[in-house]
């Protein structure tokens, strides 16, 4: 299955991209997606994001579906 990944702020700069796609096996979780991303973009590895699937923060064990938008959020600092 394929998911659309969104990256922001420090993660966007570290990976060099703000949007990318990931091909994952059926049953892959959000944590699996972050690991896969870390293998492609080394500077992300070792960091802990808040994952959001389709604009909602979810636990890392959440199973993904084809077409999901997965955003990995660094610690926020609005205001």
């Amino acid at each position, binding site marked *: 299955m394929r998911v659309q990944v*969104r990256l*922001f*702020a*420090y993660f*966007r*700069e570290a990976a060099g991209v703000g949007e990318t796609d990931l091909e994952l096996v059926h049953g892959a979780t959000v944590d699996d997606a972050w690991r896969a991303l870390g293998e492609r973009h080394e500077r992300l590895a070792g960091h*802990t*994001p*808040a994952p*959001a699937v389709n*604009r*909602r*923060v*979810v*636990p890392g064990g959440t199973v993904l579906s084809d077409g999901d938008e997965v*955003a990995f*959020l*660094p*610690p*926020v*600092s*609005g*205001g």
Partner: protein
Amino acid sequence: MIALEDGVLDPRAVEASVEGPDAGGLATFQGVVRATNEGRSVLYLEYEAYREMAIPVMQAIASEASRRWPDTRVAMVHRLGRVHVGDVSVVVAAAAPHRVEAFAACRYAIDALKSEVPIWKKEVWSDGSHWVEGNLPQPGAIT
């Protein structure tokens, strides 16, 4: 009014969106860019947002404020892009029949924005920059 704006904010417009003859109390918070942070001189801040998620999260915060303090209306506007020292980066206005609820809702809304809304600030100094790291948003935080 729940919005992300790329230019100078208008706090009176934010207030006007919630005030009314039923609201005896109007509490407004304005976040302003400080000249120094942790001993360093700030040139400016750069704000970035996950716009498609920031708006619904801000709306959820405003709704939750109205649920906790009935008859209270909350507006929240955050500026994005480059914001200079002394400029306003965020306005939160809460209108309620009485001041207790107005202050409480305003405080709740800005605190929740700072801990849950996907917006980030990059602090830029004369000799470098860094992304400020606050709270990591949690599942089910806004209830």
